[in-house]
């Protein structure tokens, strides 16, 4: 009850500070909008609704094979073919109006017919981005490989015919040019619609759940990451609030009041806890509904609301308890302001809130596991992206609970009224 009184007073103070409230609620949404690609989607003036990478093509050949290549690129998905004149394409590429230009060389059709090696040139502007360029290159290579199949089969049949040159005439007749061409063509046509060996990709089916269809998009990855980042940034508010109380001497007065240290700290944690819950609700609501209004795919909140709710509650508790530790360690206003902010940002980055955890673990090893952010990110990813239920996040929840207990004990142990 005494803790509630302390919390109620702190909530009043917090609600009066509109600047802080805006910062806690607006900044996460701003980060999500920037990194999810929503800004680009909102202001895109061309190809609205088409998420394929534009691929300008300069066809110097104009033959049948070039047309087959272009059709293959269109059918492959991922890129949207746009035909350009050579001079126009070069000028636009130099001005960075275009990111890539694929040039089909002259005599492409003739060289392929003669089984001569041909080279497709994909020229990219430095600003195109390595990942984007690599995606385009993989698509072009895949289509080129499929196109080469017919020639490979034909060359094989012709080679077999040559190896049987000394065999009886019926063997040579079997590998006559017309027959081998027809065979190669029929196999190529079949392979175009139904490849002999395909690679299919799917995501795992969660136990007892429906099959998921897609990989996580940038926005789905951004929402849990920034929720964790900003929820833990609120720890600074708890620390500041405790520092202010010490500064104005209200804690000294509370020494004389019949309130335990634990009740006092619980009361200081509660407003931050509630703020973190509201903050998470706003971020998730924006992810689920707001992003759709901006024209990009909304995020899913997983299929176990209870698991999500418990993870959020633990995350908010852990953040509040971390605030007690900051207040116990920091000695000056500057340390609480700048240094704690620095520490919280570093913990968030190491914990995988900005750069995904699986990338960080490749070069930091198990280091990210020492921060609660890592476990919070893992828990939210498991529930929201991997579609796991409560049983799939028990380890992560136990880790968050452990951090909370540890932070509270340190906060209690190091706490001083003055």
């Amino acid at each position: 009850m005494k803790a509630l009184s302390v919390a109620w007073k702190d909530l009043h103070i917090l609600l009066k500070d509109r600047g802080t409230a805006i910062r806690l609620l607006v900044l996460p949404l701003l980060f999500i909008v920037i990194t999810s690609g929503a800004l680009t989607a909102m202001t895109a003036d061309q190809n609205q609704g088409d998420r394929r990478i534009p691929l300008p093509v300069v066809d110097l050949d104009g033959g049948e094979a070039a047309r087959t290549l272009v059709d293959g690129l269109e059918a492959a998905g991922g890129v949207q073919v746009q035909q350009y004149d050579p001079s126009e394409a070069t000028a636009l590429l130099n001005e960075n109006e275009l990111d890539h230009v694929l040039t089909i060389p002259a005599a492409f059709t003739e060289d392929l017919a003669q089984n001569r090696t041909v080279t497709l040139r994909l020229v990219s502007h430095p600003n195109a981005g390595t990942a984007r360029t690599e995606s385009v290159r993989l698509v072009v290579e895949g289509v080129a490989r499929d196109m080469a199949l017919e020639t490979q089969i034909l060359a094989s049949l012709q080679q077999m015919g040559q190896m049987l040159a000394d065999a009886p005439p019926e063997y040579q007749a079997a590998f006559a040019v017309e027959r081998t061409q027809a065979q190669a063509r029929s196999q190529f046509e079949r392979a175009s619609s139904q490849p002999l060996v395909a690679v299919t990709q799917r995501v795992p089916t969660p136990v007892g759940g429906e099959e998921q269809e897609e990989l996580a998009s940038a926005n789905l990855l951004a929402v849990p990451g920034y929720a964790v980042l900003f929820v833990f940034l609120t720890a600074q508010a708890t620390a500041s609030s405790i520092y202010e109380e010490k500064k104005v001497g209200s804690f000294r007065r509370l020494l004389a009041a019949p309130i335990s240290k634990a009740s006092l700290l619980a009361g200081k944690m509660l407003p931050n806890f509630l703020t973190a819950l509201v903050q998470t609700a706003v971020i998730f609501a924006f992810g689920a509904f707001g992003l759709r209004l901006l024209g990009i795919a909304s995020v899913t909140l997983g299929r176990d609301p209870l698991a999500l709710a418990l993870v959020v509650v633990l995350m908010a508790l852990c953040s509040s308890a971390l605030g007690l530790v900051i207040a116990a360690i920091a000695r000056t206003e500057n340390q609480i302001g700048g240094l704690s902010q620095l520490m919280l940002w570093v913990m968030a980055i190491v914990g995988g809130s900005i750069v995904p955890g699986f990338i960080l673990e490749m070069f930091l090893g198990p280091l990210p596991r020492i921060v609660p952010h890592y476990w919070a990110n893992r828990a939210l990813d498991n529930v929201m992206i991997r579609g796991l239920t409560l049983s799939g996040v028990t380890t992560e929840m136990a880790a968050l609970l452990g951090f909370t207990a540890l932070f509270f004990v340190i906060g209690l142990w190091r706490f001083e009224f003055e």
Partner: protein
Amino acid sequence: MDMLRYILSVAWKEVQLIVKDRGALAVLFLLPILLASLIAAPNVMFAEEQAESAILLDVALVNQDPGNFGTEVAKAIREIKQLNVETFDAVADAEGRVARGQTTAAIVIPADFSQAIDAYAPTAIEVIVDPAEPESSSIVSGIMNQVVAEVTIWGEVQYGIRSVLEQSSLLANASPQERRALEAQNLGVIMTRLNEMRRSPLIAVVSEDLAGAESDPNWVLKYLAYVFPAFTVMFIFFIVGISANSLLKERETGVLRRLAAAPIPHAAVIIGKMLAYMVLACLQVIVLLGLAKAAFGVPLGQSPGALVVLTLVTALVATALGMLLGTVARTSSQAENLGYLLGFVLAGVGGSIPIGPTTMFFRASGIMGILSRLTPQGNAVDAFNRVMAEGASFGQVLPQVGILLAMGIVFTGIAASRFRFQS
């Protein structure tokens, strides 16, 4: 001369206050260093791993096929240096690991894989990917497409030769010895094709940059020549909130009122404050870009003069915007919050939050590009990047310098006209 002395006195007072605020200094210097380094390090690591083909991804392999093709594909997968392969007997076990995020992907070779290829019946290798690791999933699927390309050629060539022989009834009439000879020749043809395909693909795809160089080996450094200036500029503009807060605190505590009574020209107070924060901004550039050069080898371009001028005009805009905010905000707390928000919003729109190359909004076409180029951050990062990554000269970044200078003058003008020593 007196004016200069007054300006320097005010600036020195401000510098002493700044130095005492260790928290703010940590935010202005350490935070951008850590952010930029944490984004730079994985990129440098990936570039090195690409060159050395080091282990990148954990995958689970389930080979249910007892035949030759399954064995060959499994062997090929294990030999790929980018993959750390763990073998499983049951699909459920491998899939469970992916579902829990313990493995990037599971590769499943079906039981009838060899049988299907021998019978020329379509078959598929299944790649089960972790939905939370889309980048890794693309890499695994891309690798598997390359692996199956060879098996496909094998199956197609084998079927083609066999079909021609069957259509001619040659196989049916052949003796067992002739059949063995034909099979051996068939295998010889397949091996020749595969070697040919590995040595020189019929249709080669060459990826080049504008200069015609194949896949730029310095792409990481060029990318970092965006990351470091972007974070530098982003954190320079956090001076906006700090300087506005300082100005308003002095008004709230009556310091400005006392200064108004002192024999110091009013302009010296503002200019002195701006000078101190400009020095701070210049130090930020020196520390961050110096670290970028020393620790990561990020190029600083061919024009030191252009970098110096850019630093000065960027510092001018940030401090002038801070003074402007100081004259608009009503309280020091409001100024700090507005400055913080303004810093993030303008950095976001201006392409100064470098999460990837796609955040270079100042180079984008359309409304986003226009909005980005309207922000001081967009112009500053664009110019720094041109000088550092593309070796642009001072003349080539003159438009951005001009825009920043104009912004600095306008902001200072408005701030000066609105400035009051007391509320």
